[in-house]
């Protein structure tokens, strides 16, 4: 329990130096609060590490370690092995960005999964190297502007496709791999809780918008990540031992343009012939993902509309006072 807020742990507490509206900070707060302080957190180098630890100040309220960029999964393997050797079952959780997962960290991650370490690896996917100033990563989607995939006379942004890392991970025949976003907290919660009930290597890829790198209003981080799902560009899926076991159905498919418009990283695509081709390409990519995962017709109770629903914890009503207990009793 946090001393400022009795209703939560605040494993990642205030005073961290993430940009205003940071999707990764939000995602990490959600995930770590769901897991709680009785776990050991290993962090790869990246924004999350940089903005949470600064000159003798730490925003973490759980045991936390950062080593280097590429090795978070291996450090976690070591921590988990140490706990196993000591007969403890403290959960071990890795947090890494897409660079530390898709690119430089992939080898250690693969090793960790192959060896079956009882570790939850969480990738906060913001689709570029944001920490160093928005350079493209293998997670950067097609046609996105970054500082190393700039549009120009001969280019419409990134030439290559976003790496399908969840399939790579799931191909390890591992117990649980899933995608999630900050926009659907109930879904994210269900996935984190499910992951924490399973033993062995587990993987969560959480789309976490970066207002700086995606060039959108800082208030839109949740909105934009919701649109990524609703357009079909970022399917929310669960894979167990390599098999697709869960899909979040789309209540309705939205055109990709709704997702692309609010983001400056796609701005160059609007208003030119070459850009229009890429817009059609992106739409086709969304359509293909929808077909691949059956996002419109999946046989599931879970769809984007029901996963959004707010739960009433209190009472609305202007100036309404709590009912007196007498009033409640009288109603017989």
């Amino acid at each position, binding site marked *: 329990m946090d001393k400022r807020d009795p209703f939560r742990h605040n494993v990642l507490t205030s005073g961290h130096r993430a940009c205003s509206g940071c999707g990764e900070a939000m995602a990490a707060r959600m995930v770590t609060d769901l897991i709680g302080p009785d776990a050991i957190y290993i962090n790869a180098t990246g924004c999350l590490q940089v903005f949470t630890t600064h000159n003798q100040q730490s925003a973490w309220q759980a*045991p936390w*370690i950062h080593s280097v960029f*590429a090795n978070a999964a291996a450090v976690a393997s070591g921590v988990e092995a140490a706990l196993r050797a000591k007969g403890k079952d403290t959960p071990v959780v890795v947090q890494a960005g897409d660079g530390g997962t898709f690119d430089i960290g992939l080898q*250690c991650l693969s090793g960790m999964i192959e060896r079956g370490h009882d570790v939850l690896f969480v990738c906060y996917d913001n689709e570029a190297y944001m920490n160093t100033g928005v350079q493209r990563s293998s997670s950067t989607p097609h046609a996105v502007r970054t500082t190393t995939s700039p549009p120009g006379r001969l280019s419409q942004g990134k030439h290559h496709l976003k790496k399908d890392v969840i399939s790579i991970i799931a191909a390890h025949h591992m117990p649980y791999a899933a995608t999630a976003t900050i926009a659907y907290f109930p879904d994210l919660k269900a996935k984190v809780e499910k992951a924490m009930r399973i033993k062995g290597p587990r993987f969560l890829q959480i789309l976490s918008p970066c207002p700086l790198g995606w060039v959108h209003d800082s208030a839109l981080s949740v909105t934009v990540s919701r649109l990524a799902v609703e357009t079909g560009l970022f399917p929310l899926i669960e894979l167990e031992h390599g098999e697709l076991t869960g899909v979040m159905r789309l209540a309705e498919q939205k055109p990709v343009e709704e997702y692309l418009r609010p983001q400056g990283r796609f701005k160059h695509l609007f208003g030119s012939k070459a850009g229009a081709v890429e817009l059609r390409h992106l739409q086709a990519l969304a359509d293909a993902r929808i077909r691949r995962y059956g996002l419109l017709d999946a046989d599931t109770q879970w769809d984007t509309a029901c996963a959004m629903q707010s739960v009433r914890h209190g009472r609305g009503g202007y100036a309404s006072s709590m009912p007196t207990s007498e009033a409640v009793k009288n109603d017989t």
Partner: protein
Amino acid sequence: MKQLLEGSQAVAEAVRLCRPQVVAAYPITPQTHIIEHLAQQVANGELAAEFINAESEFGAASIVLGAVAGGARAFTATASQGLLLMTEVLYNIAGLRLPVVMVCANRAVGAPINIFSDHQDSMALRDAGWIQLYVESNQEAVDTLIQAYRIAEACELPVMVCMDGFFLTHTFESVDLPTQAAVDDFLPPFHFVRTLDPADPMTLGGGSEADNYQEYRSAQQAAVEDAQPVIEAFDAEFDDRFGRAHGGLLQAYRLDGAETALLGMGSLMGAVRDVVDKLRDRGQAVGALRLRCFRPFPAQALVRYLSGVQRIIVLEKAISIGAGGILASELRAALHQAGMMTPVESVIGGLGGRDLTPQVIESVFHETSRDEMGATFRFAPDHVMPDETDHG
């Protein structure tokens, strides 16, 4: 009890006696036999440790980093390219002040690729913040490994035990393995204050900026410097308990009254002793000084040992490309700082597994210094068949 064991096995037995809880490694010649033995010990139930087959040396180093931070005594071993692949993590382990112990089965670094022994790999890591102990024999490897855990855990510093690949790792020779009880008496159970534990949460490896990074480094430098008396004390205590000492920081051989000192590290020093004996028998005033502890660099002790000699020959199996001998350079700096102008001849040899035979060592002694030619070092001559030289 004395046994005839392959060096790798001897070290693996010593590791077992230290009761590590996590062993992680990635195979690379000539380290392979060490981890194969450890894997077998775990498989046989002789060693109660988690044996983690890492996906790379980078991973292996990271795993032991995590293991120690997670509160377990850990071990890894590597060599050459593997050590360099670990580099980033090794600096990190040192910066985090984690008491990791590793063996470097010293091997050359490519290109061209070469699996044979020299010291270029571990010397490249000399600035990483690790204590580096270079051993001469398999017995010393065994004893030093046990001491290494004691040193690492007392100083909160990582220790690299450097043993020459093949020359030691693949050589069967007699080794006296201590008993488990004796090692348990010498080495207390693992306890590390900065263990990741929800009961006492702490943040390790956080970011720093210009306003305190230098202070971290300064503290680290002081800690490594301060390890010198600790290394000496534990070697002395080891001697008390086990009847064997290895010189602490450095080991002199027939240096009394010597005019010339041959300085070097590792397994080549056995042959150097043989050469010293031979030359002494012929009336040459020569002695040897073996540097066991390269990091921390025992400048004062070196100056003290070498204050009486007129000529110093540094034989080393590594080169700092573009500069020359590394050990020689550091020694010159130490002497200069002490106001001594003793000439230091820097001889680089034994690279890529080339055997520094007694004949070569002797010829180095007989060669004249080339200082007047302006060179700061020279390469040792190639080995010549004994038939063609002195046969007596």
